[in-house]
């Protein structure tokens, strides 16, 4: 992603801390999918995978969203179970990982469920399963979304983003 976008995301992270920032990134990602024309989209704050998206071709994805500044992400047994559950409903399980570092973008990894195990997973490893075509469309959309919603998010945090999700027709489950 562009340096500017990275700078804005880092400022959000510094402002809200790593945990809330993860949720902010998740909502920004949902808005980015919306911008790409995915519908319906469900964003969850509590149980289940973080985001459900359905593409124009009807292809369904269940996204477990992870952000980090390090080289790996942590997958809990619950995360894996959530992905399994969504797979049962016809959603392809996808791990969406964003490393906050120069030149990095969202990696959308369609990892086979039988190859997933709980623990730390190197983001580098996820590259083997990346959905490059979706990622290539997603990257510029995400940049635009961050640019558009940075000020509002900086001011009102997740509350602002939840409003935006509702405005764009994204269903929010959880609080």
């Amino acid at each position: 992603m562009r340096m500017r976008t990275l700078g804005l995301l880092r400022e959000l992270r510094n402002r809200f801390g790593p945990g809330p920032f993860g949720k902010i990134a998740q909502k920004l990602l949902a808005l980015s999918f919306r911008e790409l024309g995915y519908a319906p989209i469900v964003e969850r704050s509590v149980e289940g995978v973080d985001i459900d998206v359905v593409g124009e071709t009807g292809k369904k994805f269940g996204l477990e969203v992870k952000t980090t500044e390090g080289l790996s992400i942590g997958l809990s047994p619950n995360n894996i179970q959530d992905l399994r559950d969504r797979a049962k409903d016809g959603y392809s399980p996808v791990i969406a990982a964003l490393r906050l570092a120069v030149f990095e973008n969202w990696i959308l990894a369609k990892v086979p469920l039988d190859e997933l195990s709980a623990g730390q997973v190197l983001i580098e490893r996820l590259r083997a399963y990346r959905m490059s075509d979706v990622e290539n469309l997603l990257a510029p959309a995400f940049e635009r979304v961050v640019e558009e919603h940075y000020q509002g998010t900086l001011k009102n945090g997740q509350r602002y983003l939840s409003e935006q999700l509702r405005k764009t027709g994204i269903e929010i489950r959880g609080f």
Partner: protein
Amino acid sequence: MLQLKYLQVEGFRGFPTKSDVLDLATPAVLLYGDNHQGKSSILNAIEWCLYGDQCVGGRSGIRERVGGWEIVNRNASGATVGLAIESEQGVTTIKRAQVKGLGKKGRSIEVILPDGTRKEGDEAEQEIMRLVGLSFRDFATTVYQHQETIRAIVIQPPSERNDAIDRLLGLSDYLNVLDGIRRSKIADAQKNLINQRKQLETRIEEALRIRQEDLKDKKREAVDSGLDESELNEEKLLEGAENVKKQMEEFASELGISAAPVSSPSDWKDAPSFGDEAQKELDRLWSESPDLKEQSELNARRTEADALKTNYESQRQALGTAKAKPQEFEREYGTQAEINHQIENTRKENDAVDDQIRQVSPKAKLVEEGIAVLEATRPDESTDVCPLCGETVPNLLDHLRKEWAERIEAQVRALKARRAALAEKRAKLIDLKTQHESLTENLAKAREQLAGAVQRAAEFLDRELTDQDDPAALLSIEIGKIDDRLKQIAEAIKGKRETLNRISQSLNRLSLLHDVLELEEKIGRIEKIAESDEYRELENIRDGVAVFVVDVEVLDRIVRECMAEEAKDKMKAAGDAIDDYFQKIVGNPAAQKLIVEIEEDKRTGGNSYTFRDQDGEEFKPISSLGDMNGLALSMFLGLVKAYGHPIGFVLMDDPSQSLGSRQKKRLVEVLDEVCRSGRNIVVGTMDSELQEFLESSLTRAKTIYEFSKWGPQSGPEVVKRV
């Protein structure tokens, strides 16, 4: 089924020379002898003759054969093994040879088929494979019981026993692949790539941080200079440049001079050259401004007026002083004429005294003058020559001094004193005269200098000045006029300078805008790294490596699964036979049934073998060496029985390594069963107890070869006993 007929070796391993032809056609061939007498070489020779390089080194899957397992005897130049095998089609003879030191060129293989056809090289190899119909790995698992395999199972610690059993089951290819995967350290290579990428990232982050801080400072400076943050862009810069040009034109017009054209910047990068050009033009306009020029000239004129006035006043004061001094002098010492008169009088008075002295002693004046002349003589000249008459008189000066002292001095002393006083007085008068002359000269000079100052003032004021004029006053009036004009100009300049400052500030803002845009471009240039072909290539490599690492992991898993699957298949096929042979050889009453359980070894990812009894309990006594040996033999013989290949013989090398007496006897009973089932056996052993059981309990015909007296040059002495 294939049966061995006969064998002959030469230069092969323990046989430096040609052996006799060994008859292997009987149901049991027993090779007796102590260690290192050549028994194993005979078994190895059969194996090598059939499989060549496949049974040598790492390819063999037998650890002991990796490095240092020599084919050609050290005292031979080459190795040759001849083997005859009988099948339903008749006898096929195989001759494999290797010349030492020639590599592949020194290897040859020849096969003579039952119909007499002779094949060599690859064709011969193909004929052998067609005849034997068994890979080397299967041959090593189901035909040839290597003593290394038994030893491995018997003496390896439990953690490594699994590996030995894998090899006994012919799974060494899988193990080798897994070992290769492990040693390739693919994941480490990926980690290395990640670290290197991380280093690159750190360097980029650092460069970025520095530039972003610079940008922040520069933006703050720009905002402080009056720009709005939203104006920090190229459009604003180009607009600003046009404004500067317009301001400069208006300024030139205000100054009343024409502005030279300054080229507009085509983009933000032209801003520095535009700034330089504009600044130069601005400097020129300012320096050529009429007000400024006049100010400069007036300042120069005022300085000159000041100097002239000061000079005039100083000269006038100097003249006053020069006039007063002669008057004072004359008041004290008289006029010039009066001093001259006194000098003349003194001269006359002195002449009179001289006359008096001459009158007192006519000679005195001459002596006195003579002494004076001689005393003034140079050291190198003689003082004996009279200065008056020129005659030479020895010690003339001394004579004259003596005469002066003794006869003349007393007579003229008073007159001389008088004359000295007159001389002193005259000298003083002459000095006064000189002083008076100097004062008169100074007065003239002061008058002249004052006239010069007046003349210069007249020139400056551009008018004639007479004695009736006061130049100082006139100059003061002129200075006042200049000051008034300078004040007027200063007022006029003040407004223009404000305009000039405004333009300079505009130029400074352009410069700041340029710096901001330049830093943004530098940051952008870092960003461009991600768009470069090299970076994309790096990304592709990262993806490729990630896929490769996963592929290798999948391959590793598949190999393990296949290995486990094959182990299970083999155990399933041979399980009953293994159990049967185990009961017969080991005879452990606690184990009525041997069940081999195969699971994944969580530590190594390989197979883990657990032996359980009929109740599913882990079979503890299996840990005794004899039981382990019995287990290995049972597994081998079970696989032999279960594996339906056409080879009708079994090779066993030192099978009784850790067996007890009863177990040895039971083993021979099992071997007899094997023989009776139609398979011939070739057994090499140093164990005399086993030999005794073999001879007494094997019910089939047997040929015994006794190996002894092995020497490095001669090899073993092999004696056939029927």
